[in-house]
């Protein structure tokens, strides 16, 4: 039984996440994203690696989308409507609700900005979303007879899940993007201990280790406050969902506390609409928000207003959240063009910017001019602030999760190659788990867990649960109870294997038991020296001295140790007596089974020495 992990996207890079895992013959696609930094055919995962004929329905059992970011869901309408995949698609309720918004927004930006031909249409998005089956957290879904999937809270954005998939005895987890710390509006990733053959984890910040978020929050607030106090305009380019809400909650709160009256704007209807969604999807937010929401919904921002295009040139300070993030296109870029030349203004860039975007150029180095996509140049005199809180886990979080889940193998995706390599070494050396960093188009194979299945008889099960006390009496009395399952596996061709108790084997085989035992009538003492009972006592004391850890039962003229049974022999001539010994004296007639072969001889030796 095997697991094959084919990387179609996000191998040694960030963007177009798409991993196809074959578990015991079932193929599952995790995420179906597009690359935001590519314009050519590279923007989509190479689906031809999956099937040459294009019959994806036959190849794939299902697609699971972890969250609504474009680099995780962007290629889905293309794959279902253009490539023709018709099988089941699973995503969480919030992802199902928010993905179409994101896709539509992106489609519009692409067509508006570059005048590109449409990769997918609005109808495509709608039709694609019809095929989606929504799932709740921890809901266990039986996709088919063998394949079982389950989503766990990932914390990255609202509705983000880590996905557990199990086929037969083999199980894997694909994390998608996740965050191991709680932030203002979302909780931390939460998963239970699972037996895994493979963990596929993101590794955006494979080497970064972040301290407390409070100084970073303060820094951001101060930067924005300073800007508006000086009469400047603060631009926060962000995607409509996620950081926008997080930062907005932070600002709204700060505005209340500091009694600031400067307006905060949201650029598009999308963000307002998004807040509406957040209100309804309250069960996916952080515990804190959930508790408060009964009295006051934290997504009802007091100071936030809708932005109008005419306000770009309006005098006076303001804060503007504009989409899309990374300044890659659209409205945020347009505003940037107007605001960047003024030194009073501020651009605060939250989160990660993909290589090739204006956001990325601003973050790397301190450029004085920036090339926009259509060749125009913009002077950058405004302040640039990088908001260093990201909804991705840091290196410590990845290590913690890996250690917690202790999978048999780890595959890292969604990261930058050099830092991924160093994290790989860390996982291999510190946790002693084999770790792989495959590139796009590569396949990694693993053997998977299998169990051998058998039916167990009641006697066997009962024998397993019967206590097995052991007393050791060194300095203090120690009692241990190590129950071992001791049975016999019987395999018959073309039949289900059985586990039975050893006493039942012959019955299963339709045979008669044949007991093999040993016997010896052992001379104990000369003639008539002492009472019989004393003799047994004396012997048992001797046996306890030499043979440790045994329990001796005495009764009348018998003593018993395990299956060893000795009786004072009253016969004049016993068949069990060896010929040399005379009939004079006292004899102990012993009998023991082969199970206690060694024990029996030990006792015989003790008795002989005693003679």
């Amino acid at each position, binding site marked *: 039984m095997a697991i094959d992990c084919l990387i179609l996207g996000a191998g040694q890079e960030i963007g177009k996440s798409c991993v196809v895992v074959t578990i015991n013959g079932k193929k599952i696609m995790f995420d179906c994203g597009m690359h935001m930094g590519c314009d050519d055919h590279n923007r989509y995962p190479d689906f031809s690696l999956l099937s040459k004929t294009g019959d994806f329905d036959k190849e794939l059992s299902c697609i699971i989308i972890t969250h609504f970011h474009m680099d995780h869901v962007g290629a889905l309408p293309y794959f279902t409507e253009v490539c023709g995949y018709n099988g089941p698609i699973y995503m969480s309720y919030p992802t199902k609700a928010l993905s179409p918004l994101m896709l539509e927004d992106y489609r519009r930006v692409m067509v508006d900005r570059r005048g590109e031909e449409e990769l997918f249409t609005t109808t495509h998005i709608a039709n694609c979303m019809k095929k989606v089956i929504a799932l709740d957290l*921890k809901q266990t879904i039986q996709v088919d007879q063998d394949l079982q999937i389950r989503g766990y809270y990932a914390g990255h954005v609202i509705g983000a899940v880590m996905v557990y998939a199990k086929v037969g005895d083999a199980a894997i987890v694909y994390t998608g993007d996740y965050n191991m710390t709680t932030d203002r509006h979302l909780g931390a990733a939460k998963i239970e201990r699972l037996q895994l053959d493979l963990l596929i984890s993101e590794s955006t910040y494979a080497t970064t280790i972040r301290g407390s978020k409070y100084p970073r929050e303060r820094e951001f607030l101060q930067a924005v406050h300073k800007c508006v106090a000086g009469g400047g305009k603060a631009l926060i380019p962000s995607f409509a969902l996620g950081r926008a809400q997080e930062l907005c909650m932070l600002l709204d709160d700060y505005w209340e506390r500091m009694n600031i009256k400067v307006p905060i704007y949201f650029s598009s209807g999308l963000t307002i609409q998004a807040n509406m969604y957040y209100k309804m999807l309250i069960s996916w937010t952080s515990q804190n928000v959930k508790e408060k929401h009964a009295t006051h919904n934290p997504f009802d921002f007091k100071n936030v207003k809708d932005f109008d295009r005419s306000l770009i040139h309006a005098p006076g300070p303001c804060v503007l959240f504009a989409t899309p993030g990374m300044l890659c296109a659209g409205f945020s870029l347009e505003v940037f063009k107007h605001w960047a030349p003024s030194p009073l203004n501020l651009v605060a860039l939250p989160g990660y910017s993909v290589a090739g975007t204006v956001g990325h150029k601003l973050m790397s180095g301190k450029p004085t001019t920036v090339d926009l996509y259509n060749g125009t140049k913009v002077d950058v005199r405004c302040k640039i602030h990088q908001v260093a809180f990201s909804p991705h886990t840091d290196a410590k979080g990845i290590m913690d999760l890996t250690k917690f889940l202790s999978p048999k193998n780890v595959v890292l995706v969604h990261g930058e190659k050099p830092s991924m390599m160093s994290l790989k070494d860390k996982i291999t050396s510190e946790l002693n788990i084999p770790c792989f960093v495959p590139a796009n188009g590569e396949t990694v194979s693993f053997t998977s867990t299998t169990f051998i299945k058998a039916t167990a008889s009641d006697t066997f*099960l009962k024998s397993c649960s019967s206590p097995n006390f052991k007393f050791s009496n060194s300095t203090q009395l120690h009692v241990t109870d190590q129950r071992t*399952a001791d049975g*016999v596996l019987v395999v018959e061709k073309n039949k289900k294997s059985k*586990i039975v108790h050893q006493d039942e084997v012959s019955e299963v085989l339709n045979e*008669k038991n044949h*007991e093999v*035992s*040993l016997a010896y009538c052992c001379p104990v003492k000369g003639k008539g020296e002492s009472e019989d009972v004393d003799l047994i006592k004396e012997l048992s004391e001797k046996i306890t001295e030499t043979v440790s850890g045994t329990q001796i039962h005495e009764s009348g003229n018998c003593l018993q140790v395990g299956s060893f049974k000795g009786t004072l022999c009253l016969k004049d001539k016993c068949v069990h007596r060896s010929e040399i010994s005379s009939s004079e004296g006292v004899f102990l007639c012993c009998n023991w089974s082969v199970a206690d072969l060694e024990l029996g*001889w030990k006792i015989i030796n003790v008795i002989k020495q005693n003679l």
Partner: protein
Amino acid sequence: MKLTCLSKGDGFQYPPCHILNLCGFRILIDCPLDLLAITIFSPVPCDVEASEYSSLDAQNPVQKKQKLEREMTPADLVCAEPWYKTVKALHLWEVSLIDVVLISNPMGVLGLPFLTQNPGFCAKIYMTEATAKIGQLMMEDLVSMHMEFRGFYGPEDSSFPGWMKNLDREEVPALLKKVVFGESGDDLGSWMRLYSLDDIKSCMKKVQAVNYAEEVCYNGTLVMKALSSGLDIGACNWLINGPHGSLSYVSDSIFVSHHAKSFDFHGLKGNDVMIYSDFSCLQSTELTENGCNSPDTATNSEKKDENLAASLLDTEESLEELEKLAFVCSCAAESADAGGSTLITITQIGIVLQLLELMSNSLESSSLKVPIFVISSVAEELLAYTNTIPEWLCKQRQEKLISGEPSFGHLKFIKDKKIHLFPAIHSPNLITSWQEPCIVFAPHSSLRLGPSVQLLQRWRGDPKSLLVLEDGLSSGLGLLPFRPIAMKILQCSFLSGIRLQKLPTLLSVLQPKRVLVPDVVNQRINLTEIKTNSILKYSENKTLRVPRITANPDVEIMAELASKLSWRKLRQRENFGIARLKGELLMKDGKYRLVSGLEQEESSGKARPLRHWGSVAPETLVDALLKMGITGSVEHSTGEDGSEDNRIIHVTNPSSGLIETSEMGTTIITDDENIASQIFQAIDGILDGI
């Protein structure tokens, strides 16, 4: 497994209660309150008009039933702080011996604090998140409504309820006695004083809320899963998987619902045992005319299966429900038109939400300007909550949420001030926005608690006003304190379970190997024609023992352990392989698993077989011994009874010994350890063993 039905319940408000004994664990299913029973208490009098009672109410159904009795008057009702009636038989069980509590709908939570307040209670409680939330709100509402009584009667100091003292007197009406003492006269112990808010809090702390279809594992042995039953938001059926097979508990269910997520078939298919616990058919008088038309299950193709499922999902039933709702709305509109107000006291949240939506819509489209009031201490929270749980709502409402609209329409109307929410009738703002005629949704359906009492007292004399009641209330004591009533009364019975005639189809879709059906249900329908299932009947307060279906449980052996096994081939049996297995038996996720134990290494040294079978021919043994350099000779001895079954081999060289062999066994007799083990090896070579 054993099933004991503690109570068959009574309608939606009082679900059935069972104790299930499974894999050695005791599972309590639901812990409801008989809220109809509090109708024996008199409501808190609001005015002095209680004396206006007229004894000429010919419509009184009580009178019809008990012609010999004198007629009951409101004075017969108990004037005391109400106590609450719990499931009687539950008190006979030792609380500390309950291992698991499963709750299948919010009504099943209401009695739970009585159980958890017991210091011996240590069970794990599972319910869906929605049930936990709604259940908690309902309990809190109950406590807050009850406060009015506390305020009126003052604190009760003795733990003995004074009101019980006089109830066994002769002049007390039989109907009242029947409610208090029960049919068999021993119900007195089931009356409890209401819990407090703190009790609810500490009860809810013990609850483990589960998500939709989340698998939870109890003690490694039982894996439980909640699947929607369609009855109400958060209501579920339970699927329990254990080492001895699978079991499903089907509570009151609705196949197609317009508010809650519909009945989930898929998870319930093909279980070993199905407990059918839908008693709702007892509420209705409808009879299945010709028993059942057992669907033809001869060809069990996939298609057939789908057809059957489709026949359950037909919309006729749900359309009927929609019609009922529309009728209630039109009645309310009619009375509003005539200048009368409407009081709606329905408990079922789904129905309330749908009515709210329908009424606001129909009022908006008409010219009527009638305000809608929802008066309940938990209304605001409850209404907000219902818009945040897409996973528990029907498809259409899920779609709404996904396209960015609230799943229930009330939000908009609240914003537009068409629906007014107030926590209590004495809320400060209520009087300023109050306007009659109006439509009021107010608890409690028993008409003894909450704002409904005052409003009913206010409107009862107004023939233009309308009271919308749940079915079953008017026939009992419910309306007694408010008589004579000039108000119009509309009794609604909404679908609250599976229609009996659909049961055979349901069984053929789900294909359980065994079905447990209540005897009272079985009397109403002929299920004998269903061949594929074996049907067992259970009755209230009797324990039904259900024999195991799967013969032996499965064990999973770790590949690691299996690879270490040393196999023994058997003589003349090529099809068999046997191996000794030593390890540690674990129980995980309801499955036995055998893993390498600590003693693995130790045991591998002792490879000597301990059990043998077959027989030893002395001649063969002598030959085998000779090959090892041991000489011996066979002596036939005759047994005591003359049969020749004991044979002896004398061993002479290298040392002396004796081998006794018979059909039963072989004994090696010697004092030479080496010879003994050599002989044993020879015997082992002849016999099969392990």
